[in-house]
């Protein structure tokens, strides 16, 4: 993988919690502007993988590279890399004591050292991007789940990241709210944002992903374009998994 369009490279990541071997050698590269979608049963280590990428969880083995620089073993410089690797969580994790605007501003002020007016302007721009400019002065408790998740996307965007990691961003949301969040993510993908997305939303995966990685038991079991994975008879495991999932949902 000497492709110089590769912005994020993950090499042979292993992670165990006690005797539980969660990640068993995961490698892939992400080109600028790509959207990679991760799918897989619960407990396969998808969240752990994302957290290993920005070192919120320290992998036992393997390395992560951002733009040719090593993210793993980077010591205090990890705080620099984390600005460049945004993250969006299932439960939003908005700062509960701050308004939507201040949520987006905080890291700009405290980490980037921007002036108040710069930070404010930037934060408002990002809120506009996710369609929430009018909600800037509301507190997290006053936002719907979909709005809260969009604020958290704006918060990640504000750092001008090279790549954003989404960990099941819509799993806590009703279908209605899921749609508004997915629309924002789709828009970002079209604008050329590089994204890694863990999700169960097959519709989103099929229409937006440049590649789907199906994870099972700590490894990438199948990997390819949505078209390939969905229609090539060579691939069965992901289809089986989605099949179960759909019939489960249909009940």
């Amino acid at each position, binding site marked *: 993988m000497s492709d110089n369009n590769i912005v994020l490279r993950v090499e042979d990541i292993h992670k165990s919690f006690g005797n539980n071997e969660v990640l068993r050698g995961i490698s892939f590269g992400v080109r600028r502007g790509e959207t990679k979608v991760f799918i897989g049963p619960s407990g396969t280590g998808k969240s752990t993988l994302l957290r290993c990428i920005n070192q919120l969880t320290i992998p036992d083995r393997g390395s992560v590279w951002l733009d040719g620089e090593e993210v793993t073993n980077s010591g205090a410089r990890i*705080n620099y890399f984390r600005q460049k690797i945004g993250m969006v969580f299932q439960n939003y*994790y908005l*700062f*509960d004591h701050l308004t939507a605007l201040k949520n987006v501003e905080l*890291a700009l002020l*405290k980490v980037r050292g921007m002036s108040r007016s710069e930070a404010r302007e930037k934060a408002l721009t990002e809120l506009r991007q996710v369609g929430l400019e009018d909600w800037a002065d509301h507190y997290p408790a*006053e936002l719907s789940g979909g709005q809260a998740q969009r604020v*958290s996307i704006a918060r*990640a965007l504000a750092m001008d990241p090279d790549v954003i990691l989404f960990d099941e961003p819509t799993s806590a949301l009703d279908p209605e709210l899921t749609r508004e969040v997915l629309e924002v993510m789709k828009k970002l993908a079209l604008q050329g944002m590089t994204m890694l997305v863990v999700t169960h939303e097959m519709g989103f995966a099929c229409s937006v992903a440049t590649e789907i990685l199906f994870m099972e038991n700590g490894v990438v079991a199948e990997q390819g374009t949505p078209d390939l994975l969905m229609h090539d008879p060579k691939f069965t495991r992901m289809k089986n998994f989605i099949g179960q999932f759909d019939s489960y949902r249909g009940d």
Partner: protein
Amino acid sequence: MDVLSILIDWSPYIVAGIAATLGLVLIALGIGILLGLPMALGQVYGSRPVRWAIGIYVWFFRGLPILVLLFLFWFGIFPGIGLGDLPAFVVGAVVLGLRGAAYQSQIFRGAIQSIGEGQMIAARSLGMSRFIAIYSVILPQAMRIALPGWSNEYPNMLTDSAVCYAIGVAELLTVTSRIVSQTYLTMPIFLASAGIFILLNYGGIKVLHGVERRIAIPGFGSGAV
């Protein structure tokens, strides 16, 4: 009539006593925050030896009666380290403060621990250092959550401050008993003094509730009271 004129005669002393009482309380509460907050952080985020040392401190200062602590420091420790000349007022305020820190640290600790881990994770994911995350995400929330519990420290501190009578601090109770012994109007003077304490007590609580309302955030911390 008699009582009133006596109270008026003694009013400068009474005012000085009230000032000393409030001084003890405010200084001690201040020391309590300044020490209690870092202690709470140490207990949550510190290494094992740090947590252990703070645990011992808290156990000691919460386990001893305030009277014994005052005696220990006033007669023993301060003279022992060459600070025997410290005024009783200073010793009283410091001892109340050291003890208050032990209680306050547990209020702050509970508040910090009640904040979901997601707040720290989100902060770190944005590239904040641990220090910045604690300072600008965890503490602002913890302080709000802690305030209702912390407000209880005021009445506790106020009533405990009266024990400084035992080492001769000229606070309100000391002034009261001095007036009683000079005038022999025992009951009325005691009751008047109790009235003043009660006013200071509930007056202060009112002020603190006002502060709580002012810094309230919609939907935040209401469940944690």
